[in-house]
């Protein structure tokens, strides 16, 4: 059984359509920890010690956030800047996170088609996520493809719930280690590995 830490950053969750539903589908069980950054650090004063201890206590780290201007909301950046300390997370003596898995759970207004070299965004989602991938590598972690909800503005509630269901399933299967590493590394998105449920597609 793997332990999963979801580091969640959303400045206006009350206005969110997708993330609110995603959170709803996170299984309530020990071993899956939700760390709501904007609720825990409304004044941006991050408790570095607490965050590092949380990281050490988990095997799989998730950054869950909306994609704002090709990046994360400000507090997640602040978190990265402060928590991933030199000599702890990276550098000659920084091995604290070695071997842990990391990926992003993101939502974007842009659609799958838009995030293509030839598409509107002129780059793929993996290219957008390059900074996170490099961060993971420097911290000696394994970076996995994202769980990605795209084209959010066009989604209706049943579709959003379907994403939520998939997210919940993904977390359970990660926890049970029932997904092979190679399988995950080869997928373009982790969503692709989870079967669509029948009842949610109305």
């Amino acid at each position, binding site marked *: 059984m793997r332990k999963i830490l979801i580091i969640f950053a959303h400045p206006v969750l009350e206005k969110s359509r997708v993330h609110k539903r995603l959170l709803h589908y996170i299984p309530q069980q020990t071993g899956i920890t939700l760390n709501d950054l904007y609720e825990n650090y409304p004044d941006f004063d991050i408790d570095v010690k607490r965050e590092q201890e949380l990281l050490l206590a988990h095997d799989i780290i998730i950054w869950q956030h909306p994609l704002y201007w090709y990046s994360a909301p400000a507090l997640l950046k602040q978190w990265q800047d402060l928590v991933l300390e030199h000599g702890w997370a990276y550098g000659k003596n920084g091995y604290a996170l070695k071997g842990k898995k990391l990926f992003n759970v993101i939502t974007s207004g842009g659609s799958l088609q838009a995030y293509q070299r030839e598409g509107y965004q002129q780059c793929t989602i993996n290219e957008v996520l390059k900074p996170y991938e490099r961060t993971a590598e420097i911290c000696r972690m394994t970076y996995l493809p994202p769980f990605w909800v795209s084209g959010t*503005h*066009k989604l209706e509630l049943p579709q959003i719930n379907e994403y939520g269901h998939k997210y919940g399933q993904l977390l359970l299967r990660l926890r049970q280690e029932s997904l092979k590493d190679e399988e995950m590394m080869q997928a373009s998105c982790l969503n692709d590995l989870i079967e669509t449920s029948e009842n949610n597609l109305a």
Partner: protein
Amino acid sequence: MEHSFFYKALVFLGAAVLFVPLAKKSGLGSVLGYLIAGVFIGPSVLGFVGAEGQDIMHYAEFGVVMMLFLIGLELEPELLWKLRKSILGLGGLQVIVSTIFIAGIAMLFHFNWQQALALGMILSLSSTAIVLQTMAEKELMRTSAGQSAFAVLLFQDIAVIPMLALFPLLATTDILHKPTTDAHDAGTWVDGQPAWLHAAIVLGTIAAVIVVGRMAVRPLLRLVAKTKMREIFTATALLIVVGIAVLMGRIGLSPALGAFLAGVVLANSEYRHELESDIEPFKGLLLGVFFIAVGASIDFGLVSQHLKEIIMWVLILIAVKALVLFLLGKVFKMGTEQNFIFSFSLTQVGEFAFVLFSFSFQQGILSQETTSIMTAVVAISMGLTPLIILANEKFILPRVGTGETEERPADEIDEKNPVIIAGFGHFGSTIGRFLRANQIPATYLDLDSDRVDTVRKMGLKAFYGDASRVDLLQAAGADKAKIIVIAISSPEKRLEMIETIKMNFPNIHMLVRSANRYDAYDLMNAGMLHIYRETLDTSLRVGVDVMSMLGFRKYTAQRLARNFMRYDEANLKRLSAIRNPDEYVVEARKYMEEIEATLQSDRQYFTGESDLSWDPDKLIEEVRASIQENPLQ
């Protein structure tokens, strides 16, 4: 009849208006002003009033009844509880020990023990009016000397009640003079009743006062307040006090005692402040008349005969009282300097002495001669108070305890700190602790020598004295410092300080504490740019937590609070510009008007969408519209 009433009123009011301001101006205090006025119009000097002085005194004693009603009103149970140690310990011991000493000395002068005890009790009291007034004028109320003096005076005020009850037991001769503050017309209900019925009537009446006060008076006041006629409210307040006085007279108890009881019963009612402000002027005026009558009744023929005796008594009293107070101050661990201020300020005999003297004369405890001599002694001891305090400040304080500046080795370089903090109370000390925690050196100014000592013990630079004085500011390095934080609690003193600093140290930045909104207006008018309302940030923090507990996101609540704070600061500036500072309004009304104006203008505050970028609605709308236009996108 009418002519004589107006004539008397003319003499009394004229004397008061002439002498009281003069006395206050020369630092003698209002009580002494009234006494001097009385002496002046009395038989010894101008002779405007003569034998009727005694008569007037009986009416004027009603001022004392009102004073006790007000004291009762002010006895908040919480305040009593908070100060219980100093009130009971310090106050109780002061009264008991001083009484014993003075009574002992009186017995040496061949008074019998009853008379000696009465004298001891009366003379152990100090003057609430004089001391509190002086302390407030010198901004000493919040120092440990001020707090202790307050506690002692409070105990003395309460101790008057049992004293009034005790005096009839000390009577050695038959009562020659019937108590005249009672209802003049009729005998009491208890005359000629058997003892058990007497006791039952007295207890029943007291119980009735408490029950009626609790159950009936509040609804009555509410009803009267609804008529919105101020004079009827005033009339009701007077009716309560007069009614109680008459009732108590009827059952043979002291009216003052009854009024005190009624005050305590009403202390927790919502109309407490209204009652206070309505009765206050009557009390002041009647007490004034009372003091004038006391002054007029001093027999100067007698005084000049007993001049030596009087002077001796004054000196003995001051010495004994100061000594007892000082020793008690030591026992209660007051700093030397504070102790001197405390013990010297309470050396006089209080205004209650006049009441108690006339009462003990009526009860036949003390002779007319003793009463006259002692009245003069009391008046002189009061008159000496400002001089004693002055002598203490000029000759004793500079030699003991906390100096204005710290004595340092001469070779030490006296570097000037960039920050000066005036006031080391809860407000200033928090700022100080924060700066110190971050190694920012600051210089502290405070009026309380005990606090200054503490600050110095912590190794900080501190000056002792009134922060609005140029020389003290100069010594603290105001000419070199960048910033001065004005964290003292008195709004008047703050404005005074601002004026001094503007005039003498124009380059320093002033950061000023303000109690509330209208205090902030005054500071704005004084040209202050950095104004910090004590309650603003804290209240908003509570608001944030309320929202969070109701399920709002913390970050959102915090942003809303910061937004509201910015709005409120801007709004304060706006309201400050349109309000009329010359308009005179009573404090309570002023507050309500302020709140009303604020709530009115809060309607302009728009909680709306301040973070449009985070609001996806418009974007969603646009995206969906474009799909309809061009389904292939």
